[in-house]
């Protein structure tokens, strides 16, 4: 049974006086308006945040219809997990119209997890190793060594993010920044500089999904597959005291392959995609991990504009996490919102030319989780 997206919305990301929950209410209302569906018609809802409370409290604002509303808290895969639940609710006959919503709001600065929550000795915290950005630096450092990725290419990824962000009304970082400025913005964790990183922020995104019969006659995008996977043996993850021998595996590779298989569509068919870009290196590596190119081939693609909006494979057309910031619970659905907007041909200044019909989204996060979707118009 096919599942369709008939409403999609997001709030402006960044830093405001709004609570994360208020972002969630706004995104949910806007998605319902976009769908032309009243809240009372929604038969089930799934959603959550990582750090801004429970999604089921939204009923106080949306209406006390008695709808079953399941809270999802699954780190970077919160949006993806809400989507899978929505798909299953529709396929299982629980409801024919379902809301999925993700929102968040984080304090300024890097995330600061505690070692005991990760099963690590407190020495890892005391000596300064509980820093996520270190891991990102170390992963791309090794990858760049193996596959010849240059600092210039890392800067070009961020330059594109800010350029696409400047064309996205709801993005946080809307000022273009040149590759030279990015390279000179100060080293944070070698080889990554300040402007190559996203920042924790706030925002929300929501989708209204429905069954094939409800979708009839509407402007829909089909959700061909939604997949979440946890890490396979041998992957290199944040906060790992050890890494086993051999070439590291990737949960993103596992999740992307499963999403493509379930959709019956391959990476070569994708015309617009959103890849987790916690920092520039992540986008470079995820291009290959998700099957869009060979390892090292990025150096033949990125400097030549292949991942730009007018390129062969437009990546992170809304500026991704680098330009939108990272509200953990919202990012996954923000990506789906962006692809839906592109496939509907409503992306304005940042519209991918040639009326794209196939899209892909990918998130990756700690402790080794990835969520992917394949969408078609």
């Amino acid at each position, binding site marked *: 049974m096919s599942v369709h997206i008939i409403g999609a919305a997001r709030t402006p990301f960044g830093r405001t006086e709004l609570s994360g929950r208020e972002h969630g209410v706004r995104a949910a209302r806007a998605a319902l308006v976009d769908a032309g569906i009243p809240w009372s018609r929604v038969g089930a809802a799934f959603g959550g945040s990582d750090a801004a409370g429970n999604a089921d409290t939204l009923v106080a604002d949306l209406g006390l219809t008695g709808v079953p509303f399941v809270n999802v808290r699954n780190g970077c895969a919160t949006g993806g997990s809400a989507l899978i639940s929505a798909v299953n609710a529709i396929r299982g006959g629980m409801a024919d119209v379902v809301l999925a919503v993700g929102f968040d709001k984080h304090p300024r600065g890097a995330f600061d997890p505690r070692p005991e929550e990760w099963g690590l000795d407190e020495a890892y915290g005391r*000596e*300064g*190793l*509980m820093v996520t950005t270190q891991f990102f*630096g*170390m992963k791309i450092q090794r990858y760049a060594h193996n596959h010849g990725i240059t600092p210039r290419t890392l800067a070009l990824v961020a330059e594109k993010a800010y350029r696409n962000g400047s064309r996205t009304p709801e993005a946080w970082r809307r000022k273009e920044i040149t590759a030279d400025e990015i390279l000179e913005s100060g080293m944070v964790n070698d080889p990554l500089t300040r402007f190559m990183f996203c920042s924790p922020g706030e925002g929300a995104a929501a989708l209204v999904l429905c069954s094939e019969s409800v979708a009839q006659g509407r402007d829909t995008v089909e959700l061909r597959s939604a997949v979440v996977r946890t890490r396979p043996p041998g992957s290199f993850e944040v906060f790992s005291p050890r890494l086993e021998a051999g070439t590291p595996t990737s949960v993103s590779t596992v999740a992307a392959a499963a999403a493509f298989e379930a959709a019956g569509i391959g990476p070569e068919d994708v015309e617009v995609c959103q890849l987790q870009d916690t920092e520039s290196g992540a986008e470079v590596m995820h291009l290959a991990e998700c099957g869009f190119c060979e390892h090292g081939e990025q150096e033949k693609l990125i400097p030549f504009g292949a991942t730009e909006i007018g390129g062969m494979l437009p990546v992170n057309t809304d500026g991704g996490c680098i330009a939108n910031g990272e509200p953990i619970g919202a990012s996954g659905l923000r990506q789906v919102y962006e692809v839906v907007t592109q496939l509907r041909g409503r992306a304005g200044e940042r519209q991918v030319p040639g009326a794209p019909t196939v899209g892909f989204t990918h998130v990756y996060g700690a402790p080794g989780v990835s969520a992917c979707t394949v969408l078609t118009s």
Partner: protein
Amino acid sequence: MADGTLWTWTVQRFAPKSPPYVSPPNGFTPFAVGYVELADGSRVEAVLDVEDPYIGMPLRLSQEAGQVPHAREVE
């Protein structure tokens, strides 16, 4: 104690949030961290007590009670 080579590294250029980080008595200074590859191919995360780390650098791992592993350059 075990010998190996540097598999990857970065430099922590900003002071991590406290807690949990405990700044040294003279204040934060950037430090290197990385993974040391051992003879069996496995890699151990360690603070690198070295200048100018590079991939392939020969290192010696050690660990004192209550600390994370540290690595020093093999002369």
